[in-house]
């Protein structure tokens, strides 16, 4: 398969009429010249395909050798890595004389060339030209990864192909003057005010652009919707899909908004937001760039179908009987109908507020953010620039992740507070001892954590938000983020006569995600029947992907029930990263297995045998003893003893392990704590619905001690 011959050098410098800003497939200008290459490239797709890749996950594979380096680079105390500096590498590309030189540089990506050209004229963190909504440039800043021997050939091939694409891109952008707006300088600071207050962009502007009938109508423009239309188009290639979103962005992913986005120095404009992935690659926040989507006017007549996104529009109600959705025209306040064949409700959820804040909302709303979407990100980013102190109310996923990201980025210049009513971060998700251990890690990120408190009074004092807490302390902050959970957007339910679950919330759907005939619900807003775990509602990214995809497939003709269990993940700084699946609730009894290295294990045994409170602890020599908590001999634990236990537990090292959540002794949820690449095993365990005598035996299957 090696193609390091004179012919391959030609690929690197294609002739003039071959030049397009082309994807790799387009290098094949004349099929008869490049047949071998086509075959190779398709073989490459297939081998890639076997590794069922989920393109939407931002989840870093922690066992990747580059991961540690990435963390070392990004999480150094000095501050986040600066993607702009990596542009130096591209100049090397131009000087490369042979194909081997090019491959040794590796991973140049054509749009990077654009950056080199414009960055030569200025030294600010330049913005990518607006006509390139999702510029991805390689940050192969440095000394990364010499390709391993087993992948050398593959690497060379890709290097050559990409090099050719890059040079093709150079020729196009540089010589043919492809892009117009690259000289525009974007200064985030001066834009702060305009970005905060810009009106929602409606597209299309007038209701006349909407068709009267549409094959597939998706209400909501988030992750579930995106997964759905991708599944629909896969099954039905010429499908016509209309996505109606109240937000004014095309579909984007939310998880980076509390994590990776904050690792950048400056915030790019809203339409070209991107972040640096775990592998160093810059990645667009948007699932697809703007030109993926069709203009709504063209959709009706397009013979190959397409996907159009209407932004800034709301659906006021649905009439399942007549298969019609009604949209509200904001200029006249009238309703107008669109008939559908299949409809999906993927309206997502909206952040909750606290009554103490609502009481004084007029006074504090300009400084209090209910964090959820891109606008909230912009709002928070620019407010922080001039703030000295930031307070986060809430100790769950969003609150803790945001606290860690902000603490890492802004301490010690600015103070970051986090306050919540649980005794530790993730207090409603993790068992108490682990929640407390995690809290210490959050504190290590620079956050001032105030647990066990509720905000009792909120006032605006001297341009700050003053919060009086239940422990009588007072916190003053310039910016406040309220992250106390979210509720599903089910405003459509009443006018559409759709059933809503009173306790869990969300539209009621069956296991196939159908609410009514031809009407489906996916994502945060769906209260669905899970055959393994019962009726539930899940507010995580992967669930939106899984349920969106399932709904899309069912809309396009399948009738599959919810089967593939979704997972979720969270990262709190460099020491805490976990993946979870199933029902994860701190109220459930748990059994956890943490790794211990043999030396400290022996030492601990010696210490324990000396302790007076050894009644609570058993030494197991044979791991077959039933491990349910009732079996362990224990005297009734008074509060004082419990506290001592907790204190000694906090000396424990909970850095790596697995937590099983049990309902009636059956495993209903699993958290893989700093253990990666084992989610498939966890998924298998869940589907078994078995009662295991000793969960330590089950834990062995996960090979916790290996990487």
């Amino acid at each position, binding site marked *: 398969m090696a193609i390091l011959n004179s012919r391959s050098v030609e690929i690197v410098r294609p002739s003039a009429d071959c030049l397009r800003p*082309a994807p790799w497939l387009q290098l094949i200008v004349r099929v008869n010249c490049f047949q071998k290459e086509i075959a190779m490239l398709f073989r490459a797709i*297939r081998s890639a395909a076997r590794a069922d890749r989920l393109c939407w996950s931002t989840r870093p594979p922690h066992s990747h050798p580059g991961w540690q380096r990435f963390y070392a680079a990004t999480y150094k105390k000095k501050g986040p890595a600066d993607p702009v500096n990596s542009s130096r590498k591209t100049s090397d590309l131009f000087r490369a004389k042979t194909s081997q030189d090019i491959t040794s540089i590796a991973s140049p990506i054509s749009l990077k060339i654009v950056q080199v050209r414009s960055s030569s004229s200025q030294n600010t963190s330049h913005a990518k030209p607006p006509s390139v909504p999702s510029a991805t440039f390689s940050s192969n800043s440095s000394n990364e990864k010499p390709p391993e021997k087993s992948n050398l050939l593959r690497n060379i091939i890709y290097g050559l192909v990409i090099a050719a694409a890059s040079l093709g891109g150079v020729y196009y952008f540089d010589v043919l003057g492809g892009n117009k707006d690259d000289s525009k300088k974007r200064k985030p600071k001066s834009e702060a005010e305009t970005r905060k207050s810009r009106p929602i962009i409606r597209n299309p502007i007038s209701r006349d652009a909407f068709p009267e009938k549409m094959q597939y109508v998706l209400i909501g423009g988030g992750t579930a919707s995106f997964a759905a239309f991708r599944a629909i188009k896969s099954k039905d290639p010429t499908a016509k899909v209309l996505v109606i979103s109240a937000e004014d962005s095309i579909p984007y992913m939310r998880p980076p908004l509390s994590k990776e986005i904050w690792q950048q120095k400056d915030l790019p404009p809203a339409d070209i937001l991107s972040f640096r992935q775990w592998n160093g690659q810059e990645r667009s926040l948007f699932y697809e760039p703007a030109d993926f989507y069709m203009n709504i006017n063209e959709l009706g007549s397009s013979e190959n179908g397409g996907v159009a996104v209407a932004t800034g529009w709301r659906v006021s109600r649905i009439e399942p009987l007549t298969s019609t959705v009604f949209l509200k025209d904001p200029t006249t306040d009238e309703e107008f109908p669109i008939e559908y064949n299949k409809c999906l409700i993927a309206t997502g959820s909206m952040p909750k507020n606290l009554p103490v804040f609502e009481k004084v909302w007029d006074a504090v709303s300009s400084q209090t953010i209910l964090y959820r979407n891109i606008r909230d990100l912009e709002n928070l980013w620019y407010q922080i620039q001039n703030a000295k102190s930031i307070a986060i109310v809430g100790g769950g996923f969003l609150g803790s992740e945001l606290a860690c990201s902000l603490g890492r980025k802004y301490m010690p210049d600015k103070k970051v507070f986090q306050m919540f009513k649980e005794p530790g971060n993730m207090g409603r998700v993790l068992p108490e001892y682990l929640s407390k251990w995690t809290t210490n890690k959050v504190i290590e990120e620079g956050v001032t954590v105030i647990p066990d408190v509720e905000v009792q009074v909120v006032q605006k004092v001297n341009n700050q938000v003053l919060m009086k807490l239940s422990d009588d302390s007072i916190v003053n902050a310039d910016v406040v983020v309220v992250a106390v959970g979210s509720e599903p957007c089910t405003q459509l339910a009443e006018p559409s006569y759709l059933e809503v679950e009173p306790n869990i919330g969300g539209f009621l759907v069956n296991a196939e995600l159908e609410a009514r005939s031809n009407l489906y619900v996916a994502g945060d807003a769906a209260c669905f029947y899970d055959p393994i775990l019962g009726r539930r509602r899940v507010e995580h990214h992967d669930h939106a992907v899984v349920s969106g995809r399932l709904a899309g497939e069912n809309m396009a003709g399948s009738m599959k029930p919810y089967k593939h269990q979704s997972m979720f993940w969270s990262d709190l700084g460099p020491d805490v990263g976990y993946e979870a699946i199933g029902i994860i609730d701190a109220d459930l009894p748990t059994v956890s297995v943490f790794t211990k290295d043999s030396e400290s294990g022996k030492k601990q045994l010696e210490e324990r045998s000396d302790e007076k409170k050894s009644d609570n602890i058993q030494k197991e020599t044979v791991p077959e003893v039933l491990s349910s908590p009732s079996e362990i001999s224990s005297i009734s634990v008074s509060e004082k003893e419990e506290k001592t236990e907790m204190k000694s537990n906090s000396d424990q090292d909970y850095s790596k392990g697995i937590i099983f959540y049990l309902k009636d002794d059956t495993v209903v949820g699993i958290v893989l704590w700093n253990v990666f690449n084992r989610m498939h095993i966890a998924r298998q365990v869940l589907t078994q619905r078995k009662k295991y005598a000793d969960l330590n035996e089950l834990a062995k299957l996960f090979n916790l001690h290996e990487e």
Partner: protein
Amino acid sequence: MSIRSSSGPNDKDLVIFATKEDHAVPSTVTLPEPEPSPGLILSNGDINWNCPCLGGMATGPCGVQFREAFSCFHYSEAEPKGSDCYEAFSTMQECMTKYPTLYNRENNDDDESDPMKFENMEEAGRSSEQSANENLEKSVAKN
């Protein structure tokens, strides 16, 4: 020797610390084989257009053209493979030139020259069932 302790309200949270030696003893629990999920090519030889590996290629504005070209290539009997698909390829190429940024970006995402990329895709959030199989086989074999 593993150490067990319990904490939390009503001692409901059991914690076990296990050393490598503890876990070296093979497990008494076995899990059944997972169902293999299809990759790009299904068991009957057809192309799985739903495969996440294709990214947006089969669903984008040039999705139909891509499918025709790729199907032609997949079923081609000519030598070398795909040489009889010139028409399909050039139609696809023509379509792709209309969306330069889109298909450039697809290029970037798909062909990042990170040599570990394809192995890593198995590790990202949802791993392929094939690797799951391998992992399970490994653990079962240890027993």
